[in-house]
């Protein structure tokens, strides 16, 4: 089966009039906004429910059926809250920081291939773009901590900065193995290269190792619990967003949740075949059965599984110490990542794919 890839940017490029180009532009922006806000709501609710069940609680039950309207109620509450800024804060940077944090999120949403026909833009250096733009999130966190004029915020931001910058190395190394395997930097081609089988299975062992490294590193990059030193509430109250309230706090919150979705989407795109149905080499009959489900459903299903895994990990493990975090990155993940990259190049050279 051959897949026809058509992104919104492609359609805009093939448009015949300025009005059509404008329409596609609006469509892209609306799609991005819709994904970000919808994912914020859905992930907020599911995170609270899952964490509650893991901790033997019920979670939100009052607003709507089984608390389904709780995220909306929370959003409305945050909208009406007073927006306080500390007296000696660096006003401009303080106001700007949450938007920068969310901007990084938006910029990544642009490249996510949801299905062959639903993608806002398909850059030919997609992998480099994703790696570069995800570093933008660090800037938001650092600025927030710095401008709050609060030692706890500052401390949290510094920890977050050190941690996110370190773990980006491992994440990018894991992405590089996939770039080696798929021989392309374009996200749609990375997905298409997995038509014979997803890289986590198809590349013997190295795919799985790279996937685990990417999972751990991205877990640290989005500051979730085994690595949530940036906000460790027991020692830093709330870390970099201690001073934020109301809508600005909500923006940080939203960025955090959507980042989790995006990281899962990236993991799915690079290792679990993106929107590609589950294929096994030359088994044509099996592959055709798998193709019956539309690729968008495959993508969302896989992302759901990975997001659940992220939440499961978050609510199981205790927080690491800063030296343990650095140990894990520089002494364990990075050497394994380099060795894995080397092994992958051997796999690619000798054509040692499983099917």
């Amino acid at each position, binding site marked *: 089966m051959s897949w026809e890839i058509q992104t919104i940017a492609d359609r805009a490029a093939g448009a015949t009039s300025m009005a059509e180009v404008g329409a596609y532009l609006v469509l892209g922006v609306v799609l991005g906004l819709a994904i970000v806000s919808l994912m914020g709501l859905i992930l907020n609710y599911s995170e609270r429910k*899952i964490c509650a*069940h*893991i*901790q*033997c*609680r019920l979670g939100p*039950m009052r607003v709507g059926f089984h608390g389904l309207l709780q995220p909306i109620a929370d959003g409305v509450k945050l909208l009406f809250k007073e927006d306080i800024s500390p007296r000696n804060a660096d006003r401009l940077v303080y106001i700007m920081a949450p938007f920068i944090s969310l901007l990084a999120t938006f910029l990544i949403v642009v490249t996510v291939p949801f299905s062959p026909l639903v993608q806002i833009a398909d850059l030919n250096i997609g992998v480099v773009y994703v790696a570069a733009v995800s570093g933008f999130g660090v800037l938001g966190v650092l600025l927030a901590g710095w401008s709050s004029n609060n030692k706890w915020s500052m401390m949290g931001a510094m920890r977050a900065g050190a941690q996110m910058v370190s773990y980006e190395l491992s994440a990018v190394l894991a992405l590089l193995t996939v770039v080696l395997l798929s021989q392309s930097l374009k996200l749609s081609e990375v997905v298409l290269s997995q038509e014979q089988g997803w890289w986590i299975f198809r590349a013997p062992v190295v795919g799985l190792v790279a996937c685990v490294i990417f999972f751990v590193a991205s877990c640290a990059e989005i500051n979730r619990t085994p690595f949530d030193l940036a906000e460790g509430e027991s020692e830093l109250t709330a870390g970099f967003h201690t001073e934020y309230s109301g809508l600005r706090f909500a923006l940080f919150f939203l960025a955090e949740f959507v980042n989790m979705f995006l990281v899962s989407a990236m993991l799915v795109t690079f290792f679990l075949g993106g929107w590609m149905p589950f294929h096994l080499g030359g088994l044509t009959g099996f592959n055709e059965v798998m193709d019956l489900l539309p690729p968008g459903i495959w993508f969302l299903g896989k992302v759901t599984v990975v997001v659940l895994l992220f939440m*499961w990990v978050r609510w*199981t493990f205790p927080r690491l110490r800063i030296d343990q975090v650095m140990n894990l990155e520089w002494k*364990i993940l990075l050497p394994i990542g380099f060795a894995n990259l080397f092994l992958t190049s051997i796999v690619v050279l000798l054509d040692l794919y499983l099917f």
Partner: protein
Amino acid sequence: MGFLSREKISGTQVVGDKRISTVQAPRPQRKSFFFNLYFGTLSLLKGMRVTARYFFRPSTWVTQQYPENRQELKMFERYRAELTLKYDENGYHNCTGCKICDSACPNNSIKVIDREGPSGKQEIDRYIWRMDTCTFCNLCVMVCPHDALEMTGRFESSVLDRRLLVYQLNRYAGATKKNIEKSKDSESKDLLLKSFESRTFYEGAIPLSTSDEKGIFDGRI
């Protein structure tokens, strides 16, 4: 399981002409890179199995949907909310008015007033319990030598006036179940039963402060 055995951390040492026992501080054992990686991952997976079990088994969730399940809610055995005297099927209690609970109560929430029964034996007259100052520490139940008290799970005790939280726990003033059973003939038993006086939940003396209690300073000079 040789690799998990601990080093010997205690021993004896001879210093001069004395033998002293020494204890070595436990040290983290250094193992190989792959050993740590493998067993670290294994222990992480064990933890995830535990949380997965909680997640998939609704029977382990403990939250009660209180106002909705009010009809079928059964409080747990160990829940401590309301102090009560135990009564048997005939309505007799075991309290002799010995005041051990009174003196054991850390914040003077219990006041026991006794009286002399028809045979000259000490009996309970009023058992006054102030819920408003009670911390539900269970000490009164634990010290009671006659097993007369118990904590029950009736937790809905909100009232609009603090004074209504002063209760009188005994339903009657008079002899205990044991003393009635011990009485030799029916005449003395009747005498005991005749001396019974009814008491209700809200009729005790209601002290508004503890200033009339011995040893409590209420701030007045």
